[in-house]
């Protein structure tokens, strides 16, 4: 497994592409990134519980749910974006790690989407008086969850992981039409879910302390995804290696 030390140092793209290289350089990053994530969560939760005003005039202490809801909802779309880029990597550049990245991200995306829907339901009950409403954004987020589940099912259905990667990439790109629908649903169908309130002309429509707590929580959740993604990519690489070793051993036993 040792690389020839006199060989030219590979550039960053092939360092990202070679599974063994990826295992080597990503290993030392996991612990610092995890610690940073934990630190950001600590700061974010402290801000959310003790600094940000809990008792605004109309929503009361349920406001604190948004510190879980918004980051999960953001990640439900961001993870799909990552998967779509990975799908392009598989189909266009035949990048050897792109399909692994797609496979590793799908369950994470499904989990974040499910959490976004769950926290949204918890928010909806006291504020709107209902757990669920067939509102544009909720429905399109539910569709997003179904697409994630379909992609996971697709990955599990194939034995040949190389073929599964290309097929899953195509499905990921076809399913990507839903992402703009989720994003703009609140502007197209103004039913129940509130509209955009951060990136709007005239500045954010919320108090600065709330905005800051939210920003820290979103960063913490994004880093959490990054760490989990790297770890599950590593797991998948090792799993594939173990499978091929088992196959080689079985062939050796035959001979």
């Amino acid at each position, binding site marked *: 497994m040792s690389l020839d030390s006199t060989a030219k140092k590979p550039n960053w793209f092939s360092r990202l592409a070679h599974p063994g290289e990826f295992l080597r350089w990503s290993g030392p990053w996991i612990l610092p990134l995890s610690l940073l994530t934990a630190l950001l969560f600590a700061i974010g939760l402290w801000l959310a519980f003790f600094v940000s005003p809990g008792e605004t005039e109309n929503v009361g202490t349920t406001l604190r749910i948004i510190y879980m809801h918004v980051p999960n909802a953001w990640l439900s779309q961001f993870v799909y974006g990552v998967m779509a880029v990975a799908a392009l990597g598989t*189909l266009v550049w035949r990048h050897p790690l792109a399909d692994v990245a797609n496979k590793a991200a799908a369950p994470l995306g499904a989990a974040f989407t499910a959490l976004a829907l769950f926290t949204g339901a918890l928010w909806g009950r006291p504020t709107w008086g209902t757990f669920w409403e067939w509102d544009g954004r909720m429905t399109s987020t539910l569709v997003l969850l179904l697409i994630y589940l379909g992609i996971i099912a697709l990955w599990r259905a194939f034995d040949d992981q190389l073929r599964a990667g290309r097929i899953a990439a195509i499905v990921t790109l076809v399913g990507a039409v839903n992402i703009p629908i989720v994003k703009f649903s609140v502007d197209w169908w103004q039913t129940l879910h509130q509209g955009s309130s951060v990136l709007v002309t005239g500045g954010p429509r919320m108090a600065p302390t709330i905005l800051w707590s939210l920003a820290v929580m979103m960063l913490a959740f994004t880093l959490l995804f990054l760490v989990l993604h790297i770890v599950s990519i590593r797991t998948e690489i090792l799993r594939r290696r173990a499978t091929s070793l088992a196959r080689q051993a079985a062939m050796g036993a035959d001979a």
Partner: protein
Amino acid sequence: MSGFSALVARDIRLAFRAGGEAFTLVVFFVMIAVVAPFAIGPDKVLLARLAPGLVWIAALLSMLLGLDRLFRADAEDGSLLLLRHAGLPLEAVVAAKLIAHWLVTALPLIVATPLLAVLLSMDPAMWGATVLSLACGTPALVAFGAIGAAVTVGLPRGGVLAAVLIAPLSIPVVIFGVGAIAGQQAGSALLLLLALSLVTCAVSPFAAALALRTGEE
């Protein structure tokens, strides 16, 4: 006769000669309209109100059920491999199969709608709107379905998986389809439905052909 129309004719002939699955699908479509009143209760006013939704659910389920025959038989007996290396581009092959598939699975459903109109106590105006909405919307279902069928053709039992992958994408078709029958802005819903069908029919042959190519490698 060009290769394209020969392929369409071949697929239609095959559908009527082998197994008669097209007819079974129509029976299934009507069956849903027979079962629904037992589940909901034979209240005519209620049935007429639910009819647009029921018709579209029946159409969606029948189309999902019929998906598997789109590429599977050709992939199993090797003719898909031959078609890939024939003069016609694979995209055109998929487009031809889409047209044939629509003619043998969707058109019979539309022909069978008078039966559903009676069973679900629709008035003639609503029946007319149903025919129009199904005619404009089913091409989109076929187009989405082709992607699902192409993606799962390499799997021994891909039928259920194709349905699970395609059903969420078909939601907009159902929304605008039902809207075109009974919505407040039926006209614009119909136009959106038509737009959806045109766009998906234009894109789907390329996506499905890509999936067929990469699946075979």
